C-alpha cells in the first residue's frame, strides 16, 4: 500500500485549515476604552472576576475589560516578559513579595494622585492601605486582608484525643500534642504538626514574639545567629521527639497546597494563610478549621499582623491609568460586585462591604472572616515592606532547614551560616 495524497484534497484541506486559522491571525481592535487585566488564580477566581467585570461594563458601557489569568507559577514569567516587552496590561494583580520589586522599577504606577478622586478609600482599613505602600507611596490596593494561620484537621485531633489547637496554643502545647499523636498512632503514624523550620512566615511570627523581626526598615536582617540557632534547635527537638513530621515527608511539601502535610494526611496541622481555608477543605476529606500560629509562651503577643493577601496595581506604562483607577475603586467598593467577589481573595478591606457580605457567607467563610477580625492581642504592628532579594532569603531558609532536618548540618552551625548567607543575599546588587 502506498500513501498518496490527492492533490486536490490536500489543497482543499489546507485552505480550510488556513481559513480557520485566520481567525487566530487577526489582532483585536479596540473601539472604546479597552482595559487589559491580568491576575493569577484558578477558574474559581476567574469566574468571580469576570462576573465582576461584566457588572462594571454594565455600569460603564464605554469600557470593556479583557482579563487573562494564569497559574501562579506561569504568572510571573508572563508578567515579567510582557513588562520587559513593553506590553504589560493596565490592571495587574500584585503580590506582597513582588510589589517592592515592581514599584522600585516603576513597572507599576503610584496611586496617590487617584485617592479621593477616582479611587475611593474612605472606609478602607488603614493598615491595609499602609500595606500597599512602598517607600511611602501607594502602589497597590489591597484586595483582602488575611493573616497567617494554622490549618487544623479537627477530626484527626478528635481521634488522637487531644484538644484542637486554638488562638492560645503555645509551642509547649505543640510538643504535648505531638506526644498524644505518637501514643494514639492514628492513620498510619500521622504526626501532630508539620515541620515548620523552613516556613518563613512562621519564623517571622516567632521572631516578632521575641521582640525582633525579619527585616529592619532599611532592609537589613533584624535577627542574628543566636536566634537562628534557637530556632533550628526548637524544631530539631520537636522532630526528634516525633511531634512533627520527619524530613522525608516534609520535603514532599514543595509549595503547592496539595503537597502540604494536611493534604497528604501526614500531619494534622499545616502552617498557611487564613484565606486558604476553603481551598484546603476542598482537597481534605476531614473537616478543617483555622487557628493562630503557636505562641512562644502563654500570653505572648504581637506575632501576627493583618497583611494584604494581594493587590490591584496599575502598570507604570499604562495609558489608561485614570480608567484603571476607576475600576479598582469599583472592585473594592461596589455593592453589587462585592457578593460576586466574595472573600475568595481575602476579607474585603472596606468596612461597609464587609458588613454587606458577612451575612451571606457560608459557615466556613464565616470562620475565616471571624478569625481575621478577632486576632486580638496576637496582632502587632505591620512590618516594613521587605527589601529586594527577600524572596531569595526565603528560598535559602528552606534549604537550610532541610540541611538540618536531614542531618547534614547541626543547628549550631546552620544558624550563623544562614545569617551570613542571608546578609550576602541582601547586600547583592543587581
Amino acid at each position, binding site marked *: 500500500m502506498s500513501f498518496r495524497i490527492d492533490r486536490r484534497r490536500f489543497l482543499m484541506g489546507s485552505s480550510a485549515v488556513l481559513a480557520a486559522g485566520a481567525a487566530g491571525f487577526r489582532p483585536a481592535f479596540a473601539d472604546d476604552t479597552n482595559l487589559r487585566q491580568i491576575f493569577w488564580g*484558578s*477558574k474559581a477566581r476567574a469566574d468571580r472576576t469576570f462576573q465582576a467585570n461584566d457588572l462594571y461594563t454594565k455600569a460603564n458601557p464605554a469600557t470593556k475589560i479583557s482579563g487573562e489569568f494564569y497559574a501562579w507559577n506561569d504568572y510571573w514569567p508572563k508578567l515579567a516578559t510582557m513588562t520587559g516587552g513593553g506590553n504589560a496590561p493596565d490592571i495587574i494583580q500584585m503580590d506582597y513579595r513582588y510589589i517592592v520589586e515592581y514599584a522600585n522599577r516603576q513597572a507599576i504606577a503610584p496611586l496617590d494622585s487617584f485617592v479621593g478622586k477616582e479611587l475611593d478609600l474612605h472606609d478602607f482599613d488603614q493598615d491595609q492601605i499602609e500595606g500597599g505602600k512602598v517607600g511611602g507611596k501607594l502602589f497597590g490596593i489591597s484586595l483582602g486582608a488575611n493573616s497567617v494561620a494554622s490549618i487544623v484537621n479537627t477530626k484527626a485531633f478528635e481521634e488522637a484525643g487531644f484538644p484542637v489547637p486554638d488562638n492560645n496554643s503555645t509551642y509547649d502545647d505543640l510538643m504535648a500534642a505531638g506526644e498524644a499523636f505518637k501514643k494514639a498512632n492514628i492513620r498510619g503514624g500521622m504526626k501532630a504538626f508539620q515541620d515548620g523550620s523552613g516556613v518563613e512566615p512562621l519564623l517571622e511570627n516567632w521572631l516578632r514574639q521575641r521582640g525582633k523581626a525579619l527585616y529592619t526598615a532599611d532592609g537589613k536582617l533584624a535577627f542574628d545567629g543566636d536566634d537562628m540557632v534557637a530556632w533550628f534547635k526548637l524544631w530539631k527537638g520537636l522532630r526528634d521527639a516525633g511531634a512533627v513530621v520527619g524530613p522525608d515527608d516534609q520535603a514532599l511539601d514543595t509549595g503547592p*497546597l496539595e503537597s502540604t502535610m494536611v493534604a497528604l494526611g501526614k500531619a494534622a496541622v499545616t502552617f498557611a494563610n487564613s484565606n486558604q481555608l476553603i481551598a484546603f477543605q476542598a*482537597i481534605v476529606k476531614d473537616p478543617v478549621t483555622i487557628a493562630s500560629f503557636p505562641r512562644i509562651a502563654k500570653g505572648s503577643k504581637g506575632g501576627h499582623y493583618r497583611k494584604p493577601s494581594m493587590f490591584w496595581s496599575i502598570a507604570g506604562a499604562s495609558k489608561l491609568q485614570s480608567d484603571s483607577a476607576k475600576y479598582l475603586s469599583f472592585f473594592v467598593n461596589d455593592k453589587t460586585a462585592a457578593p460576586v467577589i466574595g472573600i475568595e481573595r481575602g476579607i474585603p478591606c472596606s468596612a461597609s462591604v464587609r458588613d454587606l457580605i458577612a451575612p451571606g457567607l457560608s459557615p466556613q467563610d464565616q470562620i475565616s472572616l471571624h478569625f481575621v477580625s478577632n486576632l486580638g492581642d496576637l496582632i502587632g504592628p505591620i512590618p516594613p515592606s521587605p527589601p529586594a532579594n527577600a524572596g531569595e532569603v526565603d528560598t535559602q531558609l528552606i534549604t537550610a532547614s532541610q540541611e538540618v532536618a536531614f542531618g547534614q548540618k547541626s543547628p549550631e552551625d546552620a544558624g550563623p551560616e544562614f545569617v551570613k548567607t542571608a546578609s550576602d543575599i541582601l547586600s547583592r546588587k543587581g
Partner: protein
Amino acid sequence: MTSETAGTIRANERAKKLVRRRIFSVVAHIVLIAASICMLYPLLWMLSASFRPQDEIFNSNSLIPSSVNIAAYVRGWASGLQITFATFFANSFIISILSVIGNLAACSLTAFAFARLKFWGRGFWFALMLGTLMLPYQVTLIPQYVLFRNLGWVNTFLPLVVPKFLAADSFFIFLMVQFFRGIPRELDEAAMIDGCSTFGIYWRIMLPLSLPVLVTAGIFTFIFTWDDFFAPLIYLNDMKNYTVTLALRSFVDSSGESDWGGLFAMSILSLIPIFLFFLFFQRLLIEGIATTGIKR
C-alpha cells in the same frame, strides 16, 4: 541416510524451530505486557482520578475509584468560562497542523541542502544550525518577545507557526539529514544522468524514499506542538486563542482553589487527538519501506 530419515530430521529441526519461536513469542509478550503496565500505570491513575471526588484524589491508595462520576468531565469541558474546550481543541489543532506542514516543507528543503548539496560554507551553517539547539530558551525569550511585539504578532498564532515555515526546528533538520545521508547516492546520480534537476531529485527521489522519517517528523511535530505550553503562554493573551495545554494549566492554582478532577479529565481528553494522530500515521511507519527504491 535414506530420504525418509533425512526428511524426519528436517521435520524435527523445523518443529524445534517452531517451538523455539513460540517460546520466544510468549516470553516476549510477557515482557512487553509487564512493561506496558509500567508505562500505563500513571495514566490509569490519572484516568481513575478523573472520576473521583476531589477530596479523595490525594489520599486514596487504590486504582479503583469508590464511585464513578463524570462530573469532572462536564465541568472541565465547560471550563467555567464563556469558552468551552471545543475552542481550545480547535486552536491546538490548527496550530499543530500548520506546524506540521511548515516543518515538513522547510526542514526537508534545508536538510536536503545539508545532506546532498555541496556549497561554500556548508559546514559553517550546519554548525550554526545545530548551535541554535543549544541555547536555552529562557534567555532568548525576552528579545524574541520584543521582536514579535514590534512585528505586531503578539496575541496571534503567528509567533507559534511562522518559525516552523522558516525551519526553526533544528531537531528535525538534523533528523532528516541523518536519514537522507543513509540513502544511496547512486540513485541521485542515475537521475541526474536522466536529466533530472536538483529540485527534481529532491522531489522525486529523496522525499518518496524518506517516508519513514517524514512520517516520524510529522508525528513528532504534531505532538511537540500540541504539548508545548510555554510559547502559547507567552504569546497568547486572549483566552479565545488559548491552546489545550495552556488551558489545562488554568485548572490548578498552587496557592488556592484548584480543580484537580477537571484537570485530569481534560488531560485524558487531550491525549485522545494526539494518540489518534499517532495511531493513524504510525501505519505508514509499518508500511514504510521494506524494500528500497533499488527494486523500484
